[in-house]
């Protein structure tokens, strides 16, 4: 019994403490170093923050270069799919254009009317600054849904900026480095966005599911929402301006939670707009 315990101790000691053949570091030393780094990250020690920013700058660029062959294969497969679907897409687009053209004039009128009414009631008007950024890394990791864009603090990117694909919300900036930034996508489990659902201006919170859609949370039980209602940002909390379209709402079954299908295809982002808003009184 004692001999087998000794064997165990010797095997453990040999595995963790002794430096192996041609090894500069012992395993246990590096494990303690990793734990130390984690603790320093947790308490936001300045040196680890600088280390992180430097590492991010190097890694994001390198990762972009290393990912080029995989991206090319992915693009090629998407192109082939597109070619096969071209006729069906054409018919769909033709139909959509017809509908949109009829809506366009209506929208223009409503926009002007909205501006006039806001002036009348002395409501805030939102000024926005836009910045177009290229998506460097889009990893679709099983753990975190985020992308890296090629704009950072040198381009005046700020934490919390809204990230749009055309006019649809796709995420917010959660990490800013010197020339790159990380955007947490709205599909991530950690993303929580105050939203309003139209018609009815029903206030709620949109959370990511970690997949391709989102879900509505903290909704009162007696409220019923029609399928295909549109989900917009509500502007609560002041981070985003109200009215940025996000997706359409639907409930699969009575028991299941409410799903939001995003307007933007989050796995196909190539260029995005980083937008900051500020409120000004009339």
């Amino acid at each position: 019994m004692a001999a087998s315990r000794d064997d165990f101790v010797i095997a453990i000691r040999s595995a963790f403490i002794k430096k192996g053949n041609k090894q500069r570091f012992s395993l246990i030393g590096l494990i303690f170093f990793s734990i130390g780094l984690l603790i320093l990250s947790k308490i936001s020690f300045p040196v680890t923050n600088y280390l992180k920013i430097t590492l991010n700058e190097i890694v994001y660029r390198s990762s972009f270069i290393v990912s080029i062959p995989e991206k090319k294969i992915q693009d090629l497969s998407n192109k082939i799919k597109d070619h096969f679907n071209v006729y069906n897409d054409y018919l769909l687009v033709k139909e959509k254009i017809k509908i949109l053209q009829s809506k366009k004039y209506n929208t223009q009128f409503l926009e002007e009317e909205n501006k006039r009414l806001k002036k009348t009631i002395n409501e805030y008007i939102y000024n926005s600054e836009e910045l177009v950024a290229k998506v460097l890394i889009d990893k679709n990791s099983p753990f975190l849904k985020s992308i890296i864009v090629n704009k950072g603090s040198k381009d005046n990117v700020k934490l919390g900026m809204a990230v749009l694909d055309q006019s649809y919300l796709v995420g917010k900036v959660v990490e800013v480095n010197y020339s790159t930034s990380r955007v947490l996508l709205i599909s991530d489990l950690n993303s929580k966005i105050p939203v309003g659902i139209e018609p009815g201006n029903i206030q709620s919170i949109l959370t990511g599911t970690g997949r391709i859609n989102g879900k509505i949370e903290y909704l009162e039980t007696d409220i019923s929402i029609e399928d295909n209602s549109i989900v917009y940002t509500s502007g609560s909390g002041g981070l985003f301006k109200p009215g940025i379209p996000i997706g359409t709402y639907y409930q699969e079954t009575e028991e299941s939670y409410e799903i939001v299908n995003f307007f933007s295809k989050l796995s196909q982002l190539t260029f995005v707009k980083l937008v900051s808003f500020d409120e000004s009184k009339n």
Partner: protein
Amino acid sequence: MSSKFKNTIGNTFLLYLPLLLLFISVFNEFDFNYLNYQYFSFNFPFILIFYWSLKRIETLGYGFIFIAGMFNDAVLGFPIGISSLTYLIICGFAAYLRNITLRPSLTKDWLYFLFTILFANSINYFLLVLFFSIEINYYEILGNIIFTFLLYYIFAYIFDIYRKILLRIKV
């Protein structure tokens, strides 16, 4: 014959190919996630690190594994040090198995690998969720563990062939 092959560019490439693969896989995260099969993903660095730590640790080296972990954290947006710790835990388990094994068997290694990745992922999950308050879908992790475990057998078989080539040319 073997000395003739030593120190050529080809041999150096062969020798460092697993290390190169490790860095490419952490930079690129190639896990076929873009196929969009629900829950299908696997952790190639885990397979690579476990196999080479078990069979021939000097090919990768603890220092490089530590650095690869830091790069992986930067790519995934995790707190710096978490992947390094996970990778080094895998190295520790592999080194322990190496020390106690007299007659290596792929099936035993395979089962031990399952235990190792379960432990390593538990540490990873515990730190991310409880220590850093990052929400993670544990079904995704479970899928990742299962596919990593299943694919280990195939990759280990390929690496065995590769290791035999290395032994033959004595690099």
